[in-house]
């Protein structure tokens, strides 16, 4: 990234404006001095500064409003700006207000100190003294003029003209004039020969004169000259007025002027005291206001420039937080914040790279997981994984097939929770839970239980899972339904036994029987009657036992033979009806058969199936004895999307003991006194050879019950 120029926080135009404000304030300060030439511009400067303050106030107000709006909208950087501005205003305002307060105090006290009662009184006294002095002088000159009246009495107007010159000189007046009653000049004299026309009294003087009979007043003549005008009434035949003008000595006039000037100045200042105070306060307030507003405005601009990168950073952070890692922020300055922005850009770049890599790895992991799931899903063995609290995390489809429970209902539950819902799985689930809790190493166990489809046998293998730190994080159980395998092994073993028995035992039986019969034939006549009877009984016993052994061997041979010799469609209902017809004549035994409407066809060997029905009915007849009830129900069921013909056979006999239920179908297991114990084993073999299943109905409380399911023939159904 190319380095940028370092920008000042405040641009040039702002500095120029700030300079203008300072210049204006300085000019106003100079104009405050009356002697200054700028004093004439004071009002304009005041107006300009006031307008400047208003403009600044507007700018600051607009900035504050904008900041408040930004803060309200929670825009990036607004709160930082507000905090910095608040801090700046507090820091700037506090000392400024303190200085302002004390300046005002000093100012007011300073102005007040110019005035005090003593000076006030002295000024008034001085003025009064001057007035009294001048008044006394006037009165003296009035008396002096009045004394001249007598000398004018009896003079004619012409004589008075001559006499008045003498009187003026005698009195020391600068000008003396004699007026008639109507104001006509009778005679006049002046010490200044250039004065042709005497000073004429104004109208109000005449009015006062006619009222009082005399007039005296002090009047300014020129800038610094004073003159006393005295007019008195001359009582002759016709009233006349004598006006005398006395010049006030220059020294006295100067002194009076000086006193008046000082007094007037002091009075003016005293009068202007409050205005002066207000004026200075106004100027000071204006200076403070403008300075503060300008500072706040410049602070707004500066802080905005400073927080601009922070705003960008906040925006960038928000973008990153929402997952947009491609955010590149502009580097505004090569300062600390610029460095921070560069670091942020590096960080987002690296995060973006890491995200891409993670995404790639995630895809790979997902592929691997999918692959593993496919493998697990297609395994014939059930696989269930548990967490450290023995809750099921995963289970594959095979587990569902084995337990007949949907996988979704496995996940998140413990085996004990499943037990509450699936009662038929109590035994295996409890056994697995027990093994999971107690095994610290790989374990393997066969678990047999009676499921909904009869006895099932599972081969379970489990292993606890440990983390790298050695903590137990769960376990995995792999199990397989080995019921068919075990049964096949057993059947194969029994088949081999039967085949050998048939071969090894049946062959010597015939010679034994023949030899015994020959012994009887040869020796019967040679022995006495008692020995002959013993021989006959023995030979008979041997023949009977050999016959029994032959039957047993035949049974074993039958068991070993394949039971499905032919494959035809067999109507189960008809077959059962035919078999039952053979037994209905027996007294005391009641048969109750129910057939579902429709054809109940299976594909198989009718002879073998007939043998199954015969065996089961014979077992039931033996179980019920002389009296009893045998029920047969035939109907169709749908199981795992497969149609079955179900044959349920019940009796009310002695029933099957619980401990024998599991082994009842194994060869050489019988509850009867007589019998080889191969009947039910052959039944089971025939049923399984036909793709069906047989099991003991555990729900039966009275007698015994067997349920057979054979695959229905779909072609016939359609």
């Amino acid at each position, binding site marked *: 990234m190319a380095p940028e120029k370092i920008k000042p926080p405040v641009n040039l135009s702002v500095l120029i404006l700030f300079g203008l404000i300072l210049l204006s304030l300085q000019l106003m300060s100079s104009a405050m001095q009356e002697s200054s030439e700028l004093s004439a511009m*004071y*009002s304009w400067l*005041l107006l300009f500064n006031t307008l400047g303050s208003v403009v600044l106030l507007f700018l600051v107000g607009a900035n504050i409003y904008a900041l408040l709006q930004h803060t309200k909208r929670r825009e990036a950087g607004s709160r930082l700006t507000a905090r910095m501005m608040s801090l700046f205003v507090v820091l700037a305002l506090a000392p400024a207000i303190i200085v302002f307060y004390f300046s005002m105090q000093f100012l007011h006290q300073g102005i007040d100190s110019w005035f005090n009662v003593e000076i006030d009184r002295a000024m008034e006294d001085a003025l009064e003294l001057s007035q009294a002095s001048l008044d006394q002088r006037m009165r003296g000159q009035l008396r002096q003029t009045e004394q001249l009246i007598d000398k004018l009495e009896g003079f004619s107007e012409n004589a008075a003209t001559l006499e008045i010159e003498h009187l003026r000189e005698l009195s020391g007046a600068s000008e003396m004039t004699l007026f008639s009653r109507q104001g006509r000049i009778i005679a006049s004299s002046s010490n200044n020969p250039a004065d042709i026309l005497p000073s004429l009294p104004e109208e*109000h003087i005449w009015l006062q004169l006619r009222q009082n009979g005399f007039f005296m007043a002090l009047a*300014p003549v020129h800038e610094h000259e004073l003159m006393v005008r005295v007019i008195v009434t001359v009582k002759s035949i016709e009233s006349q007025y004598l006006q005398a003008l006395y010049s006030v000595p220059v020294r006295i006039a100067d002194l*009076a*002027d000086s006193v008046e000037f000082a007094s007037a100045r002091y009075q003016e200042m005293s009068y*202007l005291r409050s*205005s002066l105070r207000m004026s200075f306060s106004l100027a000071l307030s204006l200076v403070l206001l403008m300075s503060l507003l300008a500072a706040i405005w410049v602070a707004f601009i500066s802080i905005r420039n400073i927080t601009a990168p922070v705003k960008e950073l906040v925006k960038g952070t928000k973008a990153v937080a929402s997952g947009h890692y491609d955010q590149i922020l502009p580097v505004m300055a090569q300062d600390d914040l610029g460095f921070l922005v560069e670091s942020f850009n590096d960080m987002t770049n690296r995060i973006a790279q890491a995200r891409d890599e993670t995404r790639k790895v995630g895809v790979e992991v997902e592929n691997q997981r999918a692959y593993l799931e496919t493998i697990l899903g297609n395994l014939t063995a059930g696989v269930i994984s548990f967490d450290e609290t023995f809750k099921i995390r995963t289970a594959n489809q095979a587990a569902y097939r084995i337990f007949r429970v949907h996988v979704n209902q496995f996940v998140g539950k413990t085996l004990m929770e499943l037990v509450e819902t699936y009662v038929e799985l109590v035994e295996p689930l409890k056994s697995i839970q027990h093994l999971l809790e107690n095994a610290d190493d790989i374990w393997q166990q066969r678990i047999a239980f009676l499921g909904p489809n009869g006895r099932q046998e599972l081969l379970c293998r489990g292993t606890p899972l440990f983390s790298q730190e050695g903590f137990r994080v769960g376990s995995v159980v792999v199990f397989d339904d080995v019921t068919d395998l075990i049964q096949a092994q057993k059947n194969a073993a029994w088949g081999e036994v039967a085949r050998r028995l048939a071969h090894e035992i049946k062959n010597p039986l015939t010679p034994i029987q023949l030899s015994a019969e020959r012994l009887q034939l040869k020796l019967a006549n040679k022995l006495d009657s008692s020995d002959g009877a013993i021989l006959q009984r023995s030979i008979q016993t041997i023949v009977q036992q050999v016959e029994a052994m032959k039957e047993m061997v035949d049974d074993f041979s039958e068991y070993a033979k394949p039971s499905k010799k032919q494959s035809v469609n067999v109507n189960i209902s008809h077959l059962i009806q035919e078999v039952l017809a053979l037994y209905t004549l027996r007294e005391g035994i009641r048969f109750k058969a129910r057939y579902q409407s429709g054809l109940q066809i299976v594909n198989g060997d009718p002879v073998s199936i007939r043998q199954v029905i015969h065996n089961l009915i014979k077992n039931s007849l033996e179980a019920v004895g002389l009296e009893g009830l045998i029920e047969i129900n035939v109907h169709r069921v749908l199981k795992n999307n497969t149609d079955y013909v179900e044959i349920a056979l019940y009796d009310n006999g002695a029933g099957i003991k619980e401990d024998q239920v599991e082994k009842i179908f194994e060869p050489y297991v019988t509850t009867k006194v007589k019998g080889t114990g191969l009947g039910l084993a052959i039944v089971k073999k025939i049923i399984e050879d036909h793709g069906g299943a047989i099991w003991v109905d555990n729900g039966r409380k009275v007698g015994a019950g067997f349920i057979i399911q054979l695959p229905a023939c779909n072609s016939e159904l359609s």
Partner: protein
Amino acid sequence: MPLLRNRKRFCQLLLMVILGILSFLVSGALFSAEIKQGDIAKRSDEYFLSVNIDYHLSEKAKTALQNGVPLYWNLLVKVQKYPGFFWDKTWLKVAKRYQLQYHALLNMYRVKNEDNGEVHSFSSLSSALELMSVIIDLPLINKALLDPEHQYLCLIKLDFKRDDLPLPLRPFAYIDPQWYLSSEWTSWPLKK
């Protein structure tokens, strides 16, 4: 809506300001001078103005005067075309400048004509104002300067100089109607 409410409040504030300015102007008129009985006479080629001016000094002005503050008035005279445009030439001049001041020592009011330096003292304020009220035969303009094709107006105004007041008084003189002692412009046509 806050925006509308703010706008309404702003309008109310503006109305109050306008009313304040109007009341200021109305109250200012209470103390303004009036120009009465004007007459323009033409002698030879010169126009002469005679007017009578009525002064109304406010209490504040009188108090200031009593405390030694001098008051200044300018009599402004303007001659312009009628009807005219702003670019037309206008003759404007300060015809007279008076200073009125109170002298505490003599207890007199002194009127000084600043143009020629004449000083007149009066024992009463009304007498002093009377002197300033009467203007007789004030030369206006020479006829040769005017275009005979056009009509002209003569406008007169008595302007109280607030800028000549003592500096501390000035800011308040501009906002206090009691210091508005000037007259309005009064016009008369110049007869050809």
